[in-house]
Protein backbone atom coordinates (compact mmCIF):
# COMPACT_ATOMS: atom_id res chain seq x y z
CA UNK A 1 0.00 0.00 0.00
CA UNK A 2 2.73 2.42 0.91
CA UNK A 3 4.32 1.70 -2.46
CA UNK A 4 1.30 2.91 -4.35
CA UNK A 5 0.72 5.93 -2.14
CA UNK A 6 4.12 7.32 -1.18
CA UNK A 7 2.72 10.67 -0.07
CA UNK A 8 0.95 9.09 2.90
CA UNK A 9 1.57 10.83 6.22
CA UNK A 10 4.47 9.35 8.10
CA UNK A 11 6.50 8.76 4.98
CA UNK A 12 10.02 10.13 5.11
CA UNK A 13 9.14 13.72 4.23
CA UNK A 14 10.32 16.53 6.45
CA UNK A 15 7.03 18.36 6.38
CA UNK A 16 6.38 21.37 8.61
CA UNK A 17 4.03 19.32 10.75
CA UNK A 18 6.59 16.62 11.25
CA UNK A 19 9.34 19.04 12.24
CA UNK A 20 6.98 20.84 14.61
CA UNK A 21 6.00 17.57 16.27
CA UNK A 22 9.60 16.52 16.81
CA UNK A 23 10.66 19.94 18.08
CA UNK A 24 7.76 20.09 20.55
CA UNK A 25 8.49 16.60 21.82
CA UNK A 26 12.18 17.33 22.27
CA UNK A 27 11.46 20.59 24.10
CA UNK A 28 9.10 18.83 26.49
CA UNK A 29 11.67 16.08 27.02
CA UNK A 30 14.28 18.70 27.86
CA UNK A 31 11.92 20.40 30.30
CA UNK A 32 11.38 17.04 32.00
CA UNK A 33 14.92 15.78 32.09
CA UNK A 34 17.06 18.89 32.72
CA UNK A 35 15.63 19.63 36.18
CA UNK A 36 16.32 16.05 37.18
CA UNK A 37 19.89 16.20 35.90
CA UNK A 38 20.38 19.47 37.76
CA UNK A 39 18.90 17.97 40.91
CA UNK A 40 21.14 14.89 40.80
CA UNK A 41 24.11 17.16 40.12
CA UNK A 42 23.10 19.12 43.23
CA UNK A 43 23.63 15.96 45.29
CA UNK A 44 27.26 15.96 44.12
CA UNK A 45 27.97 19.66 44.72
CA UNK A 46 29.15 21.61 47.74
CA UNK A 47 27.32 24.37 49.55
CA UNK A 48 30.28 26.69 48.81
CA UNK A 49 30.00 26.04 45.10
CA UNK A 50 26.24 26.54 45.18
CA UNK A 51 26.58 29.88 46.96
CA UNK A 52 29.41 31.11 44.75
CA UNK A 53 27.37 30.22 41.68
CA UNK A 54 30.50 29.10 39.85
CA UNK A 55 29.46 25.55 39.03
CA UNK A 56 28.35 26.29 35.50
CA UNK A 57 25.44 24.86 33.52
CA UNK A 58 23.08 22.99 35.89
CA UNK A 59 25.96 22.94 38.38
CA UNK A 60 27.62 20.14 36.47
CA UNK A 61 31.00 21.84 36.83
CA UNK A 62 30.92 21.52 40.61
CA UNK A 63 30.37 17.83 41.07
CA UNK A 64 32.88 15.69 42.95
CA UNK A 65 32.98 12.58 45.08
CA UNK A 66 34.50 14.51 47.99
CA UNK A 67 31.31 16.57 48.17
CA UNK A 68 29.26 13.40 48.44
CA UNK A 69 31.49 12.11 51.24
CA UNK A 70 31.08 15.37 53.15
CA UNK A 71 27.33 15.57 52.54
CA UNK A 72 26.92 11.99 53.69
CA UNK A 73 28.77 12.78 56.92
CA UNK A 74 26.22 15.52 57.53
CA UNK A 75 23.20 13.36 56.69
CA UNK A 76 24.51 10.43 58.67
CA UNK A 77 25.41 12.73 61.57
CA UNK A 78 21.80 13.83 61.89
CA UNK A 79 19.80 12.51 64.80
CA UNK A 80 20.04 12.12 68.54
CA UNK A 81 23.19 10.68 70.11
CA UNK A 82 25.62 11.15 67.23
CA UNK A 83 23.25 10.49 64.38
CA UNK A 84 22.67 7.42 62.28
CA UNK A 85 18.91 7.94 62.20
CA UNK A 86 18.89 8.25 58.40
CA UNK A 87 19.89 4.61 57.87
CA UNK A 88 17.38 3.61 60.50
CA UNK A 89 14.62 5.39 58.52
CA UNK A 90 15.73 3.68 55.32
CA UNK A 91 15.65 0.26 56.96
CA UNK A 92 12.21 1.01 58.43
CA UNK A 93 10.99 1.85 54.95
CA UNK A 94 12.53 -1.34 53.61
CA UNK A 95 10.81 -3.44 56.26
CA UNK A 96 7.43 -1.79 55.69
CA UNK A 97 7.66 -1.80 51.90
CA UNK A 98 8.83 -5.43 51.70
CA UNK A 99 6.42 -6.82 54.29
CA UNK A 100 3.58 -4.78 52.78
CA UNK A 101 4.54 -6.00 49.32
CA UNK A 102 4.68 -9.66 50.37
CA UNK A 103 1.30 -9.36 52.09
CA UNK A 104 -0.09 -7.70 48.96
CA UNK A 105 1.12 -10.63 46.86
CA UNK A 106 -0.16 -13.27 49.27
CA UNK A 107 -3.58 -11.62 49.25
CA UNK A 108 -3.81 -10.45 45.65
CA UNK A 109 -2.74 -13.62 43.82
CA UNK A 110 -5.43 -16.00 45.11
CA UNK A 111 -8.04 -13.23 45.25
CA UNK A 112 -7.43 -12.05 41.70
CA UNK A 113 -7.51 -15.63 40.48
CA UNK A 114 -10.78 -16.36 42.25
CA UNK A 115 -12.38 -13.20 40.89
CA UNK A 116 -11.28 -13.99 37.36
CA UNK A 117 -11.83 -17.71 37.05
CA UNK A 118 -14.28 -18.94 39.70
CA UNK A 119 -17.99 -18.31 39.84
CA UNK A 120 -19.61 -17.60 43.18
CA UNK A 121 -22.23 -15.40 44.71
CA UNK A 122 -20.71 -12.06 45.70
CA UNK A 123 -18.13 -12.05 42.93
CA UNK A 124 -19.48 -8.89 41.32
CA UNK A 125 -19.67 -7.11 44.66
CA UNK A 126 -16.06 -7.99 45.48
CA UNK A 127 -14.92 -6.88 42.06
CA UNK A 128 -16.77 -3.59 42.40
CA UNK A 129 -15.36 -2.98 45.89
CA UNK A 130 -11.87 -3.70 44.59
CA UNK A 131 -12.20 -1.28 41.69
CA UNK A 132 -13.63 1.38 43.96
CA UNK A 133 -10.85 0.97 46.52
CA UNK A 134 -8.35 1.06 43.68
CA UNK A 135 -9.48 4.37 42.19
CA UNK A 136 -9.89 6.01 45.57
CA UNK A 137 -6.95 8.17 46.68
CA UNK A 138 -5.37 6.49 49.69
CA UNK A 139 -4.82 9.67 51.69
CA UNK A 140 -8.56 9.90 52.35
CA UNK A 141 -8.37 6.85 54.59
CA UNK A 142 -5.34 7.93 56.61
CA UNK A 143 -7.27 9.56 59.45
CA UNK A 144 -9.79 6.68 59.80
CA UNK A 145 -6.83 4.28 59.79
CA UNK A 146 -5.13 6.37 62.44
CA UNK A 147 -8.27 6.22 64.60
CA UNK A 148 -8.42 2.45 64.17
CA UNK A 149 -4.76 1.88 65.04
CA UNK A 150 -5.07 4.35 67.92
CA UNK A 151 -7.99 2.35 69.28
CA UNK A 152 -5.80 -0.74 69.59
CA UNK A 153 -2.92 1.29 71.00
CA UNK A 154 -0.45 0.55 68.22
CA UNK A 155 0.35 4.07 67.04
CA UNK A 156 4.10 4.45 66.53
CA UNK A 157 4.66 0.78 65.70
CA UNK A 158 5.72 -0.47 62.30
CA UNK A 159 3.58 -3.56 61.92
CA UNK A 160 0.18 -1.85 61.54
CA UNK A 161 1.61 0.27 58.72
CA UNK A 162 2.91 -2.82 56.92
CA UNK A 163 -0.39 -4.67 57.38
CA UNK A 164 -2.40 -1.72 56.07
CA UNK A 165 -0.10 -1.43 53.07
CA UNK A 166 -0.69 -5.12 52.41
CA UNK A 167 -4.17 -4.14 51.26
CA UNK A 168 -3.41 -3.33 47.65
CA UNK A 169 -6.55 -3.50 45.49
CA UNK A 170 -4.64 -2.43 42.38
CA UNK A 171 -2.59 -5.61 42.77
CA UNK A 172 -5.74 -7.71 42.95
CA UNK A 173 -6.99 -5.97 39.83
CA UNK A 174 -3.72 -6.66 37.99
CA UNK A 175 -3.92 -10.35 38.91
CA UNK A 176 -7.57 -10.43 37.87
CA UNK A 177 -6.71 -8.98 34.45
CA UNK A 178 -3.77 -11.36 34.18
CA UNK A 179 -5.87 -14.49 34.61
CA UNK A 180 -8.66 -13.10 32.48
CA UNK A 181 -6.29 -12.63 29.58
CA UNK A 182 -3.74 -15.43 29.90
CA UNK A 183 -5.53 -18.37 31.50
CA UNK A 184 -8.31 -19.95 29.49
CA UNK A 185 -11.32 -21.19 31.43
CA UNK A 186 -10.76 -24.59 29.80
CA UNK A 187 -7.59 -24.97 31.84
CA UNK A 188 -9.56 -24.64 35.06
CA UNK A 189 -12.18 -27.11 33.81
CA UNK A 190 -9.49 -29.57 32.81
CA UNK A 191 -7.88 -29.33 36.25
CA UNK A 192 -11.28 -30.08 37.83
CA UNK A 193 -11.78 -33.11 35.63
CA UNK A 194 -8.37 -34.32 36.72
CA UNK A 195 -9.69 -34.20 40.26
CA UNK A 196 -7.79 -31.16 41.51
CA UNK A 197 -9.52 -29.12 44.20
CA UNK A 198 -10.07 -25.39 43.61
CA UNK A 199 -7.19 -24.56 45.94
CA UNK A 200 -4.88 -27.08 44.29
CA UNK A 201 -5.79 -25.71 40.86
CA UNK A 202 -4.68 -22.29 41.99
CA UNK A 203 -1.37 -23.57 43.37
CA UNK A 204 -0.45 -26.09 40.68
CA UNK A 205 -1.99 -24.61 37.54
CA UNK A 206 -2.50 -20.87 38.01
CA UNK A 207 0.49 -19.88 40.14
CA UNK A 208 3.20 -21.36 37.87
CA UNK A 209 2.05 -19.14 34.97
CA UNK A 210 2.02 -15.95 37.05
CA UNK A 211 5.64 -14.84 37.06
CA UNK A 212 4.91 -11.68 35.08
CA UNK A 213 2.05 -10.50 37.25
CA UNK A 214 3.96 -11.32 40.44
CA UNK A 215 6.70 -8.95 39.28
CA UNK A 216 4.13 -6.26 38.43
CA UNK A 217 2.30 -6.46 41.74
CA UNK A 218 5.54 -6.58 43.72
CA UNK A 219 6.88 -3.56 41.85
CA UNK A 220 3.79 -1.37 42.11
CA UNK A 221 3.13 -2.18 45.75
CA UNK A 222 6.77 -1.62 46.70
CA UNK A 223 6.76 1.79 45.00
CA UNK A 224 3.41 2.75 46.54
CA UNK A 225 4.60 1.70 50.01
CA UNK A 226 7.97 3.41 49.67
CA UNK A 227 6.52 6.75 48.60
CA UNK A 228 3.50 6.75 50.90
CA UNK A 229 3.61 9.85 53.03
CA UNK A 230 0.39 10.58 54.87
CA UNK A 231 -0.09 7.15 56.43
CA UNK A 232 3.39 6.96 58.03
CA UNK A 233 3.03 10.62 59.00
CA UNK A 234 -0.19 9.91 60.86
CA UNK A 235 0.90 6.61 62.37
CA UNK A 236 4.64 6.96 63.01
CA UNK A 237 5.45 10.63 63.69
CA UNK A 238 5.16 10.04 67.42
CA UNK A 239 8.09 7.60 67.35
CA UNK A 240 11.22 9.05 65.78
CA UNK A 241 12.98 5.68 65.69
CA UNK A 242 10.17 4.17 63.66
CA UNK A 243 9.79 6.87 61.01
CA UNK A 244 10.04 5.95 57.37
CA UNK A 245 12.38 7.71 54.97
CA UNK A 246 9.61 9.73 53.33
CA UNK A 247 8.70 11.46 56.57
CA UNK A 248 12.35 11.39 57.64
CA UNK A 249 13.26 13.60 54.70
CA UNK A 250 10.56 15.97 55.86
CA UNK A 251 12.39 16.13 59.19
CA UNK A 252 15.64 16.88 57.37
CA UNK A 253 13.94 19.72 55.49
CA UNK A 254 12.66 21.05 58.79
CA UNK A 255 16.21 21.03 60.17
CA UNK A 256 17.75 22.83 57.22
CA UNK A 257 19.11 26.33 57.75
CA UNK A 258 17.60 27.18 54.37
CA UNK A 259 14.11 27.08 55.83
CA UNK A 260 14.45 27.09 59.58
CA UNK A 261 17.43 28.96 60.92
CA UNK A 262 16.41 28.56 64.55
CA UNK A 263 16.21 24.78 64.55
CA UNK A 264 19.30 24.46 62.37
CA UNK A 265 21.38 26.64 64.68
CA UNK A 266 21.07 24.03 67.41
CA UNK A 267 22.42 21.21 65.26
CA UNK A 268 25.98 19.96 64.74
CA UNK A 269 25.27 19.10 61.11
CA UNK A 270 24.37 21.53 58.37
CA UNK A 271 21.84 20.38 55.82
CA UNK A 272 21.95 22.69 52.84
CA UNK A 273 20.59 22.01 49.37
CA UNK A 274 23.37 19.55 48.35
CA UNK A 275 22.76 17.48 51.48
CA UNK A 276 18.99 17.49 51.00
CA UNK A 277 19.43 16.52 47.36
CA UNK A 278 21.80 13.71 48.30
CA UNK A 279 19.42 12.43 50.99
CA UNK A 280 16.59 12.43 48.45
CA UNK A 281 18.78 10.79 45.83
CA UNK A 282 19.80 8.05 48.28
CA UNK A 283 16.18 7.50 49.23
CA UNK A 284 15.40 6.86 45.56
CA UNK A 285 18.01 4.15 45.06
CA UNK A 286 15.82 1.26 46.31
CA UNK A 287 13.13 2.38 43.87
CA UNK A 288 15.70 2.46 41.09
CA UNK A 289 16.87 -1.07 41.94
CA UNK A 290 13.32 -2.39 42.02
CA UNK A 291 12.54 -0.62 38.76
CA UNK A 292 15.55 -2.07 36.97
CA UNK A 293 14.75 -5.55 38.29
CA UNK A 294 11.12 -5.40 37.27
CA UNK A 295 11.74 -3.45 34.06
CA UNK A 296 11.45 -6.29 31.57
CA UNK A 297 8.07 -7.17 33.03
CA UNK A 298 6.90 -3.57 32.93
CA UNK A 299 7.46 -2.99 29.24
CA UNK A 300 4.28 -4.79 28.26
CA UNK A 301 2.43 -1.94 29.83
CA UNK A 302 -1.19 -2.41 28.73
CA UNK A 303 -2.30 -3.49 32.18
CA UNK A 304 -0.48 -0.55 33.74
CA UNK A 305 -3.85 1.02 32.96
CA UNK A 306 -4.73 2.21 36.39
CA UNK A 307 -1.77 3.30 38.46
CA UNK A 308 -3.14 5.38 41.24
CA UNK A 309 -1.53 8.39 42.78
Amino acid at each position, binding site marked *: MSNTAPSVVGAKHWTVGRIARIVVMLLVAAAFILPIIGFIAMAFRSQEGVLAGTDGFLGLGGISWDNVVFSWSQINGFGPGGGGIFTRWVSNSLVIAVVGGVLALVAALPAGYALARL*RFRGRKVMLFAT*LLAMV*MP*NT*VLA*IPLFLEVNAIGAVGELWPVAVIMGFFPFGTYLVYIHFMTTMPQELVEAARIDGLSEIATFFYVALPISKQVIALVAFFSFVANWTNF*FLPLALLTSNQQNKTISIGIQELIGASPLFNATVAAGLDVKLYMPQLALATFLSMIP*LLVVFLTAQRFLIRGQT*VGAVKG
Partner: protein
Amino acid sequence: MSSPKLATKRTESPATAARASTTPRRHRTRHAEARGAWILLAPYLALFLVAAAIPIGYAFWIALQKAPTLVDPTSGFGGFDSFITVITDYRFSGTFINIFSVMIVWLPLMMLGIVGLALLVHASPGRFGSSMRFIYFIPGALSGIANFVLWVYLLHPTQSPLAPLWQEVGFGSLKEIVTDGNMPVILTGMLFFQGVGTWIIVVNGGLNGIPDEIFEAAKIDGASAWDLAWHIKLPLIRPWIGYAALMNLAYGFQLFLEPYLLRQISSGAIAGEWAPTQLGYAFAFTNRNFPAAAALSIILLVITLSIGVIIVMKSGLFGDDKEEKR
Protein backbone atom coordinates in the same frame (compact mmCIF):
# COMPACT_ATOMS: atom_id res chain seq x y z
CA MET B 1 -25.59 -18.82 38.32
CA SER B 2 -23.98 -15.58 39.33
CA SER B 3 -23.06 -14.30 35.88
CA PRO B 4 -25.06 -15.92 33.10
CA LYS B 5 -23.81 -13.35 30.60
CA LEU B 6 -20.23 -14.50 31.04
CA ALA B 7 -21.10 -18.14 30.91
CA THR B 8 -22.95 -17.89 27.63
CA LYS B 9 -20.12 -16.01 26.03
CA ARG B 10 -17.61 -18.71 26.81
CA THR B 11 -16.94 -21.24 24.12
CA GLU B 12 -18.56 -24.52 25.06
CA SER B 13 -15.80 -26.91 25.98
CA PRO B 14 -16.40 -30.63 26.43
CA ALA B 15 -15.91 -30.10 30.13
CA THR B 16 -18.71 -27.57 30.54
CA ALA B 17 -21.00 -29.57 28.32
CA ALA B 18 -20.43 -32.67 30.39
CA ARG B 19 -21.02 -30.74 33.58
CA ALA B 20 -24.24 -29.24 32.33
CA SER B 21 -25.69 -32.67 31.53
CA THR B 22 -25.37 -34.05 35.03
CA THR B 23 -27.27 -31.59 37.16
CA PRO B 24 -26.78 -33.02 40.68
CA ARG B 25 -23.04 -33.32 40.18
CA ARG B 26 -22.94 -29.85 38.76
CA HIS B 27 -24.61 -28.60 41.88
CA ARG B 28 -21.90 -30.14 44.01
CA THR B 29 -19.08 -28.66 41.89
CA ARG B 30 -20.77 -25.26 42.07
CA HIS B 31 -20.73 -25.49 45.81
CA ALA B 32 -17.10 -26.59 45.89
CA GLU B 33 -16.24 -23.79 43.48
CA ALA B 34 -17.82 -21.14 45.69
CA ARG B 35 -16.18 -22.54 48.80
CA GLY B 36 -12.81 -22.61 47.07
CA ALA B 37 -13.29 -19.05 45.91
CA TRP B 38 -13.94 -17.76 49.40
CA ILE B 39 -10.95 -19.65 50.79
CA LEU B 40 -8.78 -18.08 48.11
CA LEU B 41 -10.27 -14.67 48.84
CA ALA B 42 -9.82 -14.98 52.61
CA PRO B 43 -6.44 -13.20 53.03
CA TYR B 44 -7.52 -10.37 50.73
CA LEU B 45 -10.85 -10.10 52.48
CA ALA B 46 -9.14 -9.92 55.87
CA LEU B 47 -6.92 -7.07 54.69
CA PHE B 48 -9.90 -5.38 53.04
CA LEU B 49 -11.69 -5.41 56.38
CA VAL B 50 -8.70 -4.20 58.39
CA ALA B 51 -7.52 -1.52 55.96
CA ALA B 52 -10.78 -0.25 54.50
CA ALA B 53 -14.13 -1.51 55.77
CA ILE B 54 -13.48 -1.42 59.53
CA PRO B 55 -11.72 1.98 59.59
CA ILE B 56 -14.51 3.49 57.49
CA GLY B 57 -17.18 2.04 59.74
CA TYR B 58 -15.25 3.01 62.84
CA ALA B 59 -14.69 6.55 61.56
CA PHE B 60 -18.40 6.86 60.95
CA TRP B 61 -19.10 5.71 64.49
CA ILE B 62 -16.49 8.08 65.95
CA ALA B 63 -17.94 10.94 63.91
CA LEU B 64 -21.27 10.43 65.65
CA GLN B 65 -19.68 10.76 69.08
CA LYS B 66 -19.47 13.90 71.16
CA ALA B 67 -16.02 15.45 71.44
CA PRO B 68 -14.88 15.63 75.06
CA THR B 69 -13.88 19.15 76.08
CA LEU B 70 -12.15 20.52 79.17
CA VAL B 71 -15.46 21.76 80.54
CA ASP B 72 -17.29 18.56 79.75
CA PRO B 73 -14.87 15.65 79.54
CA THR B 74 -17.58 13.07 78.98
CA SER B 75 -18.07 11.62 75.57
CA GLY B 76 -21.11 9.88 74.21
CA PHE B 77 -23.53 9.98 71.34
CA GLY B 78 -23.41 13.38 69.68
CA GLY B 79 -25.45 12.84 66.55
CA PHE B 80 -24.30 14.97 63.66
CA ASP B 81 -22.73 17.60 65.93
CA SER B 82 -19.22 16.86 64.72
CA PHE B 83 -20.29 17.26 61.09
CA ILE B 84 -21.74 20.65 62.03
CA THR B 85 -18.51 21.50 63.86
CA VAL B 86 -16.54 20.72 60.72
CA ILE B 87 -18.78 22.46 58.21
CA THR B 88 -19.16 25.59 60.31
CA ASP B 89 -15.43 25.74 61.06
CA TYR B 90 -14.11 29.07 59.77
CA ARG B 91 -11.46 27.26 57.72
CA PHE B 92 -13.71 24.62 56.11
CA SER B 93 -14.98 26.40 53.00
CA GLY B 94 -11.59 28.04 52.53
CA THR B 95 -9.85 24.69 52.19
CA PHE B 96 -12.19 23.68 49.39
CA ILE B 97 -11.83 27.03 47.68
CA ASN B 98 -8.09 26.51 47.86
CA ILE B 99 -8.13 23.15 46.14
CA PHE B 100 -10.64 24.37 43.55
CA SER B 101 -8.35 27.29 42.78
CA VAL B 102 -5.60 24.76 42.06
CA MET B 103 -7.80 22.41 40.08
CA ILE B 104 -9.00 25.21 37.80
CA VAL B 105 -5.43 25.79 36.66
CA TRP B 106 -4.08 22.28 36.99
CA LEU B 107 -6.77 19.98 35.59
CA PRO B 108 -7.13 21.64 32.15
CA LEU B 109 -3.36 21.86 31.73
CA MET B 110 -2.95 18.30 32.94
CA MET B 111 -5.54 16.95 30.50
CA LEU B 112 -4.07 18.99 27.67
CA GLY B 113 -0.61 17.68 28.51
CA ILE B 114 -1.71 14.08 28.87
CA VAL B 115 -3.76 13.94 25.69
CA GLY B 116 -1.46 16.15 23.62
CA LEU B 117 1.71 14.30 24.53
CA ALA B 118 0.06 10.88 24.24
CA LEU B 119 -1.10 11.79 20.72
CA LEU B 120 2.35 13.10 19.82
CA VAL B 121 3.97 9.92 21.11
CA HIS B 122 1.47 7.83 19.21
CA ALA B 123 2.14 9.78 16.02
CA SER B 124 5.85 8.99 16.39
CA PRO B 125 6.39 5.32 15.69
CA GLY B 126 9.68 3.60 16.29
CA ARG B 127 12.51 4.34 18.64
CA PHE B 128 11.98 8.11 18.83
CA GLY B 129 8.41 7.76 20.10
CA SER B 130 9.18 5.08 22.64
CA SER B 131 12.23 6.89 24.02
CA MET B 132 10.22 10.11 24.36
CA ARG B 133 7.52 8.18 26.20
CA PHE B 134 10.17 6.80 28.53
CA ILE B 135 11.61 10.27 29.21
CA TYR B 136 8.15 11.66 29.95
CA PHE B 137 7.69 8.89 32.47
CA ILE B 138 10.91 9.57 34.43
CA PRO B 139 9.55 12.44 36.59
CA GLY B 140 6.70 10.14 37.62
CA ALA B 141 9.25 7.94 39.34
CA LEU B 142 10.05 10.86 41.64
CA SER B 143 6.71 10.80 43.34
CA GLY B 144 5.89 12.24 46.72
CA ILE B 145 8.62 13.69 48.84
CA ALA B 146 11.34 13.33 46.19
CA ASN B 147 9.34 15.38 43.73
CA PHE B 148 8.82 17.93 46.44
CA VAL B 149 12.52 18.34 47.23
CA LEU B 150 13.20 18.63 43.51
CA TRP B 151 10.71 21.49 43.35
CA VAL B 152 12.24 23.18 46.37
CA TYR B 153 15.44 23.15 44.35
CA LEU B 154 13.67 24.55 41.28
CA LEU B 155 11.83 27.23 43.25
CA HIS B 156 14.77 28.43 45.29
CA PRO B 157 15.35 32.04 44.19
CA THR B 158 19.15 31.87 44.28
CA GLN B 159 20.12 28.21 43.94
CA SER B 160 17.70 27.12 41.25
CA PRO B 161 18.69 26.81 37.60
CA LEU B 162 15.69 29.07 37.10
CA ALA B 163 17.13 31.66 39.51
CA PRO B 164 17.63 34.35 36.83
CA LEU B 165 13.95 34.01 35.96
CA TRP B 166 12.83 34.31 39.59
CA GLN B 167 15.02 37.34 40.12
CA GLU B 168 13.74 38.91 36.92
CA VAL B 169 10.18 38.59 38.22
CA GLY B 170 11.35 40.09 41.49
CA PHE B 171 11.36 37.12 43.85
CA GLY B 172 14.19 37.30 46.35
CA SER B 173 13.24 34.59 48.84
CA LEU B 174 11.19 31.43 49.06
CA LYS B 175 8.76 33.33 51.24
CA GLU B 176 8.04 35.66 48.34
CA ILE B 177 7.56 32.79 45.91
CA VAL B 178 5.50 30.48 48.10
CA THR B 179 2.47 32.68 48.74
CA ASP B 180 -1.23 31.98 48.75
CA GLY B 181 -1.59 33.68 45.40
CA ASN B 182 1.09 31.53 43.79
CA MET B 183 -0.17 28.24 45.20
CA PRO B 184 -2.26 27.29 42.13
CA VAL B 185 0.73 27.75 39.84
CA ILE B 186 3.25 26.05 42.12
CA LEU B 187 1.02 23.06 42.80
CA THR B 188 0.14 22.82 39.12
CA GLY B 189 3.85 22.57 38.34
CA MET B 190 4.46 19.93 40.99
CA LEU B 191 1.44 17.80 40.17
CA PHE B 192 1.87 18.06 36.42
CA PHE B 193 5.54 17.12 36.58
CA GLN B 194 4.96 14.10 38.78
CA GLY B 195 1.72 12.88 37.25
CA VAL B 196 1.70 13.48 33.53
CA GLY B 197 4.12 10.71 32.50
CA THR B 198 2.15 7.85 34.02
CA TRP B 199 -1.03 9.08 32.40
CA ILE B 200 0.65 9.46 29.01
CA ILE B 201 1.45 5.76 29.24
CA VAL B 202 -2.12 4.94 30.23
CA VAL B 203 -3.68 6.95 27.39
CA ASN B 204 -1.02 5.70 25.00
CA GLY B 205 -2.05 2.18 25.98
CA GLY B 206 -5.60 3.11 24.97
CA LEU B 207 -4.34 4.43 21.62
CA ASN B 208 -2.34 1.27 21.00
CA GLY B 209 -5.53 -0.70 21.51
CA ILE B 210 -7.11 0.86 18.40
CA PRO B 211 -6.82 -1.52 15.44
CA ASP B 212 -4.37 -0.29 12.78
CA GLU B 213 -6.90 -0.90 10.00
CA ILE B 214 -8.84 2.15 11.14
CA PHE B 215 -5.82 4.39 10.57
CA GLU B 216 -4.97 2.69 7.29
CA ALA B 217 -8.49 3.28 6.04
CA ALA B 218 -8.41 6.93 7.05
CA LYS B 219 -5.05 7.46 5.38
CA ILE B 220 -6.34 5.99 2.16
CA ASP B 221 -9.22 8.44 2.39
CA GLY B 222 -6.61 11.19 2.49
CA ALA B 223 -6.66 12.08 6.19
CA SER B 224 -3.71 14.14 7.42
CA ALA B 225 -1.90 13.39 10.68
CA TRP B 226 -3.93 16.19 12.23
CA ASP B 227 -7.25 14.78 10.93
CA LEU B 228 -6.23 11.40 12.26
CA ALA B 229 -5.53 12.75 15.74
CA TRP B 230 -8.52 15.07 15.96
CA HIS B 231 -11.27 13.13 14.21
CA ILE B 232 -10.31 9.53 14.81
CA LYS B 233 -7.97 9.00 17.73
CA LEU B 234 -9.48 11.58 20.08
CA PRO B 235 -13.07 10.27 19.92
CA LEU B 236 -11.85 6.69 20.29
CA ILE B 237 -9.89 7.35 23.46
CA ARG B 238 -12.67 9.34 25.13
CA PRO B 239 -13.13 6.69 27.86
CA TRP B 240 -9.46 6.93 28.79
CA ILE B 241 -9.59 10.72 28.85
CA GLY B 242 -12.64 10.63 31.11
CA TYR B 243 -10.91 8.12 33.33
CA ALA B 244 -7.79 10.30 33.60
CA ALA B 245 -9.84 13.43 34.30
CA LEU B 246 -11.88 11.83 37.07
CA MET B 247 -8.91 10.12 38.69
CA ASN B 248 -7.04 13.40 38.77
CA LEU B 249 -10.12 15.19 40.09
CA ALA B 250 -10.36 12.69 42.94
CA TYR B 251 -6.65 13.10 43.52
CA GLY B 252 -7.10 16.84 43.89
CA PHE B 253 -9.40 16.41 46.89
CA GLN B 254 -6.79 14.53 48.87
CA LEU B 255 -3.81 16.83 48.32
CA PHE B 256 -1.75 16.84 51.45
CA LEU B 257 1.99 16.45 51.11
CA GLU B 258 2.63 19.45 48.89
CA PRO B 259 0.74 22.16 50.81
CA TYR B 260 1.86 20.63 54.10
CA LEU B 261 5.53 20.87 53.15
CA LEU B 262 5.20 24.18 51.33
CA ARG B 263 4.13 25.67 54.62
CA GLN B 264 7.26 24.24 56.18
CA ILE B 265 9.66 25.76 53.64
CA SER B 266 7.91 29.13 53.52
CA SER B 267 8.17 29.71 57.29
CA GLY B 268 4.42 29.49 57.56
CA ALA B 269 3.46 31.81 54.70
CA ILE B 270 0.88 29.18 53.74
CA ALA B 271 -1.86 28.36 56.23
CA GLY B 272 -1.43 25.15 58.18
CA GLU B 273 -4.94 24.17 57.20
CA TRP B 274 -4.71 24.97 53.52
CA ALA B 275 -6.29 21.77 52.15
CA PRO B 276 -9.22 19.76 53.55
CA THR B 277 -6.94 16.85 54.47
CA GLN B 278 -4.75 19.25 56.44
CA LEU B 279 -7.79 20.49 58.32
CA GLY B 280 -8.59 16.87 59.19
CA TYR B 281 -5.01 16.40 60.31
CA ALA B 282 -5.28 19.49 62.50
CA PHE B 283 -8.53 18.26 64.05
CA ALA B 284 -6.90 14.92 64.85
CA PHE B 285 -3.44 15.98 65.96
CA THR B 286 -3.69 19.62 67.08
CA ASN B 287 -7.18 19.79 68.58
CA ARG B 288 -7.38 16.08 69.41
CA ASN B 289 -10.98 16.35 68.29
CA PHE B 290 -11.31 12.85 66.83
CA PRO B 291 -15.05 13.09 66.06
CA ALA B 292 -14.43 16.19 63.93
CA ALA B 293 -11.42 14.59 62.22
CA ALA B 294 -13.51 11.51 61.48
CA ALA B 295 -16.41 13.63 60.21
CA LEU B 296 -14.15 15.49 57.81
CA SER B 297 -12.71 12.18 56.58
CA ILE B 298 -16.22 10.91 55.96
CA ILE B 299 -17.04 14.04 53.95
CA LEU B 300 -13.92 13.60 51.79
CA LEU B 301 -14.64 9.90 51.51
CA VAL B 302 -18.16 10.54 50.20
CA ILE B 303 -16.79 12.97 47.61
CA THR B 304 -14.00 10.71 46.35
CA LEU B 305 -16.16 7.57 46.54
CA SER B 306 -18.80 9.27 44.40
CA ILE B 307 -16.15 10.14 41.84
CA GLY B 308 -14.90 6.55 42.10
CA VAL B 309 -18.37 5.13 41.47
CA ILE B 310 -18.67 7.29 38.35
CA ILE B 311 -15.26 6.09 37.15
CA VAL B 312 -16.05 2.42 37.68
CA MET B 313 -19.62 2.49 36.37
CA LYS B 314 -19.46 5.03 33.58
CA SER B 315 -15.97 5.10 32.14
CA GLY B 316 -16.61 1.85 30.30
CA LEU B 317 -13.09 0.70 31.12
CA PHE B 318 -13.95 -1.74 33.87
CA GLY B 319 -16.92 -3.60 32.41
CA ASP B 320 -16.87 -7.36 32.82
CA ASP B 321 -17.59 -7.88 29.14
CA LYS B 322 -14.63 -5.81 28.10
CA GLU B 323 -12.24 -7.69 30.37
CA GLU B 324 -13.57 -10.93 29.00
CA LYS B 325 -12.70 -9.86 25.49
CA ARG B 326 -9.20 -8.61 26.20
